[in-house]
């Protein structure tokens, strides 16, 4: 390890007798006016203070008087000896740490060594001077400590500053991060909102499109079905009758398909709303069964309808949609069953409830048909899917029915489920909660059908307002077939003109027309009727005690269109394509009060 000492390193910086000269300097300062001479052992003579000229004899005498250095072991300082010199005294001193003899001339008349106090003064002054160097080192040491402490304090201060700076930088970074995060979230939210608006707009446009498409499709369908029916009533040979029947069946299928697609579109656009009315459970079940009477008989299977006799008859709910679901399920069951039976069952799940309270009902359609493989059980509820691809070819259908059923049941708060196995028949069931009702409200006018060919409603003058020439012709033929006398007007304005000039018993009013549409025309008619001043001018309106019946005609099969017709003041509503039975019913009793 390192053990060099100071003189080894800095020796060459030191004068030979630097320490001794230092000492003399200190003594000269301590006792001003005195003269100092140090004769070092090697003979070097060092001087300080006032110049001291020491006669050789005096020096010799003093030296001789000095006791040997090792004489008094107790004290390092040998007692001084003195000689008179000029105006003062010269003292000779020696000591271990001095490595020489010190001659010290101090002015004054008294020999200080003659008294103990004077001797002590001399000795202690020398000791003090010798200690001065140690004191300087102590002071230097202390100063170094102080500086080191200062450095530590500075470093500490800088550490604190630095740590605070870091803390601040970190805080700023965090804040910056938070700000970026916030603005990023805001930006994304805005983007999402915008995307959402676009999606909603897209969805709305899609619904619009579907509604319009359905209108566009229904108009020609109207003509096809109508004219096919008219054609069937003419004299046809056997093969012509066959063709005509095929046309009618196909167009009926196409119409059902269009209705399915429209329903699905409405459900998916969230625009299908349930219409809650009071209805009779028995009537509902019977009407479903009635629809399949012929099909069941043709296939040689049976259709059994049973309901728990403990159940009340009247409930509140969307009977129309409920019928749609059941018709679909029974229709499927009949379609896929070649032997055995199809059952339609209704049973209570919850205990009996009072009027107005809800009752949970389970509807079940069970068949002994071909069944569904286990791995297809979920898929059959998807759109455009059947148990397998070949089913479509064998049994027909679009695969939309069950998808619609599932959605409709969900809308009613239930869930449709199926149990089946290949070749083991299928059971479709769902449960919905329906409030128990007092009695059913009168059935809507549009659904009352009276007989097939129906009685002829002869002799009535009918104003047919319709812009489409094909439909004009069809409706004219259909109404005249019922023994009515139709007059055609091409739009609302023309209709008003006819009503002014001639007398009519009934108006069949298309909704969409140029110049003045059906809704505006109807509102105008009702306005004229309630205005005694104008009423007299209109031949059709003047003599009547009651408002003239106006029946709306539209290819828009949406319920909001129907509502719009009633709101405009129409008495009834026929959706195109016109079904003959409904036409008859409306012609017979436009207000549906029959």
């Amino acid at each position, binding site marked *: 390890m390192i053990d060099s000492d100071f003189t080894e390193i800095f020796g060459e*910086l030191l004068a030979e007798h630097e320490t001794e000269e230092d000492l003399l300097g200190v003594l000269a300062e301590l006792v001003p006016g005195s003269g100092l001479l140090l004769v070092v052992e090697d003979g070097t003579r060092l001087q300080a203070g006032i110049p001291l000229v020491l006669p050789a004899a005096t020096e010799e005498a003093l030296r001789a008087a000095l006791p040997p250095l090792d004489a008094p072991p107790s004290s390092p300082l040998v007692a001084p000896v003195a000689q008179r010199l000029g105006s003062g005294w010269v003292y000779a001193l020696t000591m271990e740490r001095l490595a020489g003899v010190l001659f010290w001339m101090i002015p004054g008349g008294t020999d200080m060594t003659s008294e103990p106090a004077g001797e002590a003064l001399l000795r202690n002054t020398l000791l003090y001077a010798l200690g001065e160097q140690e004191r300087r080192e102590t*002071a230097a040491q202390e100063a170094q400590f102080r*500086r080191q402490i200062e450095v530590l304090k500075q470093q500490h201060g800088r*550490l604190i500053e630095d740590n605070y700076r*870091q803390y601040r930088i970190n805080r700023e970074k965090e804040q910056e991060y938070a700000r970026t995060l916030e603005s990023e979230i805001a930006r994304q939210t805005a983007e999402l909102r915008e995307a959402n608006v676009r999606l909603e707009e897209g969805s709305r446009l899609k619904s619009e499109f579907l509604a319009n498409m359905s209108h566009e499709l229904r108009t020609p369908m109207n003509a096809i079905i109508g004219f096919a029916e008219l054609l069937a009533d003419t004299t046809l040979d056997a093969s012509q009758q066959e063709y005509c029947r095929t046309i009618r069946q196909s167009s009926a299928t196409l119409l059902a398909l269009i209705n399915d697609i429209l329903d699905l579109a409405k459900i998916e656009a969230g625009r299908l709303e349930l219409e809650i009315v009071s209805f009779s459970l028995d009537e509902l079940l019977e009407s479903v069964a009635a629809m399949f009477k012929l099909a069941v008989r043709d296939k040689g299977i049976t259709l059994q309808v049973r309901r728990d006799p403990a159940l009340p008859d009247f409930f509140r709910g969307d009977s129309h949609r409920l019928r749609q679901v059941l018709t679909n399920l029974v229709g499927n069951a009949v379609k896929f069953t070649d032997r055995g039976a199809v059952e339609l069952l209704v049973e209570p799940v919850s205990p009996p409830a009072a009027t107005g309270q809800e009752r949970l009902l389970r509807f079940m359609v069970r068949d002994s048909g071909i069944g569904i493989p286990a791995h297809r059980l979920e898929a059959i509820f998807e759109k455009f899917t059947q148990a397998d691809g070949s089913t479509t070819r064998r049994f027909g259908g679009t695969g939309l029915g069950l998808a619609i059923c599932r959605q409709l049941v969900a809308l009613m708060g239930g869930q449709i489920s199926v149990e089946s196995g290949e070749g083991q028949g299928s059971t479709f069931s769902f449960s919905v909660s329906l409030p128990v009702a007092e009695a059913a409200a009168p059935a809507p006018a549009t659904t009352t059908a009276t007989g097939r060919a129906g009685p002829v409603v002869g002799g009535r003058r009918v104003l047919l307002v319709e812009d489409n020439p094909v439909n004009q012709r069809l409706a004219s033929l259909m109404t005249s077939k019922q023994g009515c006398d139709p007059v055609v007007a091409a739009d609302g304005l023309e209709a008003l003109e006819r009503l002014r000039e001639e007398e009519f018993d009934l108006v069949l009013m298309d909704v969409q027309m140029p110049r003045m549409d059906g809704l505006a025309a109807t509102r105008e008619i009702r306005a004229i009727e309630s205005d005694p001043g104008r009423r007299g001018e209109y031949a059709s309106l003047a003599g009547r005690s009651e408002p003239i019946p106006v029946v709306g005609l539209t290819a828009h099969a949406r319920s909001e269109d129907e509502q719009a017709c009633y709101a405009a003041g129409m008495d009834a509503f026929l959706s195109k394509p016109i079904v003959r039975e409904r036409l008859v019913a409306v012609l017979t009793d436009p207000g549906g009060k029959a």
Partner: protein
Amino acid sequence: MYDAQQIVRKFSDIKTLPHVAFRVNQLVKDDQATMHDFEEVIKLDPVLVTRLLRLVNSPYFGLVQKVESISKAVVFCGLKQLRNLVTVEALRGMFKGDGERFSREKLWLHSATVAILAEMIAKRIFGLDGEDVFLAGIIHDVGLVAEDQVAGEELRLAADAMRRGEGLLLECERRYLGTDHCETGALLAKEWKLSDQVFKAIRYHHDDRKTFTLPSVPAIIVLADFMAFKMQYNPVPGAPVPSLPPVLARHVKSMMANYKIIVRDLPAEMEKARELYRTDD
């Protein structure tokens, strides 16, 4: 024959100041740097992390609390101190190899002595933090390592010539290598982007024509270098002691008592810093 550029270029190919030390030096100058940035850089070298924590917890720092993470070490020691430790660690690996004619290990001991002495002088005499002089001390002779790497035989011949009394080490280096360790070391300092004061200390620590006033880093390094020579901690075996510039001699003379204390306390300080410079692992 080489010039300093060639030596540095060849040296850099083999031994660059490790990436970590370089990044840390940059971080010290960046006032936006945080202890996390520091930790990120140092974490890249797991051995370094262990060594640093051992150093931070050694008697040299005298911390009361045991420091167990780099970010905490930054909190307690400060960026500059840590920068020095990282540099020491980075350089330590370069100072391996012993020999009669030239010994990198003896050079390392010389460098460590100069660094510790320089730090003592800065702190005790001038009340300065001593962090830059420490770095300068540990790195002031790095040019010799580069020369040894690239032109080891020439360096040994130069050292032999110096020992035969054919001139100062610097003169012999120029004769056999075409350059000297001050020049090569300075180029390395520039490449490593060390501070201007550290650069000057390396460049001019044997240049009599340049006078630096105390307490500048170069002046303190010249003084500490002189003292280390006197203590027989020579950079090259048998190198004669350089002369102490008069201005420094006057300074020491005027502060005798102070330097006596420094010389007296040096062994204890070296002992405390042992962990810093020992090469036995």
